[in-house]
């Protein structure tokens, strides 16, 4: 039985590796070099060698929003909700954070705390709106969320090109950089912010704890599995759904805050980096388990940062990194699904034979 388990665990990994190498060979590379270059471009080669702190910092600060958004999505997925609106929640968090960063002048520690709080509130309100549309208006959360994604993006563009535009300039390229005191404290010469890492890890641990050690998490799962039954059992399902959107929105808002004051240092139209959509893939791959979010989102962050090396070094378009990413996700999901199916069938056969 143990050997079967090992086999079914290795198969998904094997499918991923075969798919990745197949794609890279088809793209005219030798298969190994692109992967090495992506690693080198994101964390250095050998990994974390001296002089790569800047790259590592960038990769970590891309990992932060993906991981935070993924942690939030675990909550809404467990509540049975497809929170496509997470992109908008990230953006709205960044907008709220940008407002405080631009307008508030207090001591730096207090300012940073206020910015993060504002970002969380912004994302939370936008998430809550999706939830209200779902519970009170009967608007499917996918459509409501998608619509609010566009609204948030449009608000960002408006703010950048008009009220928050650079002096004498009307451009969608972004606002002026925020004041230094409004930026996340980082290690010298890098974007790497220990505070952002701590917040992310605490958030992930909190989500793990929510579903492992709290009645609230258990009821949320119940709502996600079977809403009518949960309601009959006395669980206020709408309130739990709204709670899920609030938690997810707040984490997404902090993700947007990190983008604004920890990576781009200003508000730009593409402030979400599409990391909300990427986080959906992360969570599906992690199969809604909190701690798997850490390595999987880091892997995606490595691709996001490191794939430019494909064009720089191999003259292969860096878009191949995105194709590689999609291929890995699909092949991993196929492999995991197939292995789970086989494992379940074998277990059922074993039960029947005893």
């Amino acid at each position, binding site marked *: 039985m143990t050997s079967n388990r090992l086999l079914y665990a290795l198969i998904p990994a094997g499918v991923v590796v075969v798919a990745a190498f197949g794609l890279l060979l088809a793209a005219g590379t030798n298969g190994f070099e692109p992967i090495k270059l992506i690693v080198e471009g994101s964390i250095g080669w050998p990994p974390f060698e001296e002089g790569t702190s800047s790259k590592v910092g960038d990769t970590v600060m891309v990992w932060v929003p993906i991981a935070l958004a993924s942690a939030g999505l675990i909550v809404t997925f467990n509540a049975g909700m497809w929170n496509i609106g997470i992109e908008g929640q990230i953006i709205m968090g960044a907008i709220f954070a940008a407002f405080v960063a631009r307008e508030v002048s207090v001591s730096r520690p207090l300012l940073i705390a206020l910015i993060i709080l504002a970002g969380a509130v912004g994302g939370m309100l936008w998430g809550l709106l999706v939830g209200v549309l779902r519970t009170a208006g009967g608007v499917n959360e996918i459509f409501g969320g998608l619509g609010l994604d566009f609204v948030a993006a449009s608000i960002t563009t408006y703010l950048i090109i008009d009220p928050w535009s*650079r002096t004498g300039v009307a451009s969608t390229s972004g606002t002026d950089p925020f004041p230094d005191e409004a930026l996340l404290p980082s290690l010298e010469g890098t974007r790497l912010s220990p505070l952002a890492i701590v917040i992310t890890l605490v958030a992930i641990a909190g989500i793990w704890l929510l579903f492992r050690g709290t009645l609230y998490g258990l009821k949320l799962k119940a709502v996600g599995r079977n809403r009518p039954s949960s309601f009959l059992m006395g669980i206020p399902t709408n309130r739990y759904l709204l709670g899920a959107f609030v938690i997810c929105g707040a984490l997404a808002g902090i993700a947007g805050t990190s983008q604004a004051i920890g990576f781009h240092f200003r508000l730009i139209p593409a402030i979400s980096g599409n990391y909300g959509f990427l986080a959906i893939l992360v969570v599906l791959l992690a199969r809604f388990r909190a701690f798997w979010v850490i390595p999987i989102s880091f892997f995606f962050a490595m691709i996001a940062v490191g794939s430019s090396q494909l064009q720089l070094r191999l003259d292969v378009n860096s878009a191949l990194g995105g194709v590689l990413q999609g291929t890995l996700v699909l092949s991993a999901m196929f492999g995991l699904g197939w292995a789970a199916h086989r494992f379940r069938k074998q277990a059922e056969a074993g039960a029947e034979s005893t």
Partner: protein
Amino acid sequence: MLSKRLIQMLAVLLAFALVAAACGDSSSDTTATTTGGGGTTTTTDGGTATTATTTPSTDPFKMGILLVGPEFDQGYSQAHFEGAEWAMDQIGGELISLDFINPADNPGLTPEAVAKDMIDQGAQMVVFNSDDMRDGAFAAAEQNPETPMVWVSGDSAWADGRAYRADLTNLSNVWGQMTFGKMIAGCAAGLTTQTGKLGYLGPLTNDETRRLVNSAYLGAQYCYENYRGLDASDLEFAVTYIGFWFEIPGVTLDATQVVNDLIDGGADVMLSGIDTTQALVRSGQRADGGEALWAVPYDFEDACQEAPSICLGVPYFNWGPAYVDLANSVIDGSFTATWEWLPPDWADINNVNTSTIGYIKGDGLSSENGAFLDQFIAGLGDGSINLYAGPLNWQDGSSFLGDGETATDIQIWYSEQCLEGIEGVCDLG
């Protein structure tokens, strides 16, 4: 349950370890190796003088360039890419390039990180090709003070400039006097229009883009009046800005739709100020449908190929000579942080070896108008035509240049508004 998870985790780690182990040594290749003969240099304007350190080497010179858009956009980025390739051909150097360096296309990449990668690959000079990379160029110059860098279109090395950064002694600026190119483009449009209305597809609004719109307007007025004998005040000129150097779906205005709107508003000649060719392409499509339309693209010398029959010509950048000069200055150790605003070579504005700004006439320009255009270019070159001469007012009616006053470089560079007579909002922000 725990053991199952542990096994799964180990399996994935094993897979990654196998991949990592198979990746071999750390050697790597660079792209686009070229060799060639000797180069030429162009004149430069003023600037400050602090020498950046360079490392003498027997290896081929390596130049890195970050492109804001795609390297084959038939526009601004392609002009830079091909200019840089040409320059490396001339000096026997190698080019390292990366395109799509903007947050919409590459949200996880920053210009300073790309610059660092290029330096790690051996780039001895790094060029940021867009105004949009200002913050990244500053950060890269601060983080790599030993590496000469160039921020194209900027003013950080101009002692009289508003963004002057005396501390960035390794960051130069280079730009071409496209004001002349746009005057020529405007002249071709003014000579050709039948409706007496011109449309300008603008990118974003800033000093640079207003400067170019104003120049096109002045050129159009001059030729409309002096060669056609019509009243310049009757010539209408409308500009609409899309919000960025090129169209970004969902973020900027739709460039094709803006062209449609301008044409529907009566414009029969479209001038492009954006990095890509929608103005020409859309005008060509409508011309194929029977409308009498013409267009003037921008940036890239072969841009007319998108719709040659309606193209009146293209004002373009020829970056090669400037890049040769900059590379040579790094090689011989004379690189300094300078601001260069390079004029056309008036002896032959299309001389690939000497002229940073050129204008290639298109098939849509009649031979008669072509002759007028040659007169106009000659007048600009010998100084007998100076379009930045007063009286000129800003769009809000305030005075830009008094009667008999001519504009200085700094007045033209920092164009705060569009000129009076231009329709469209140009002073947002």
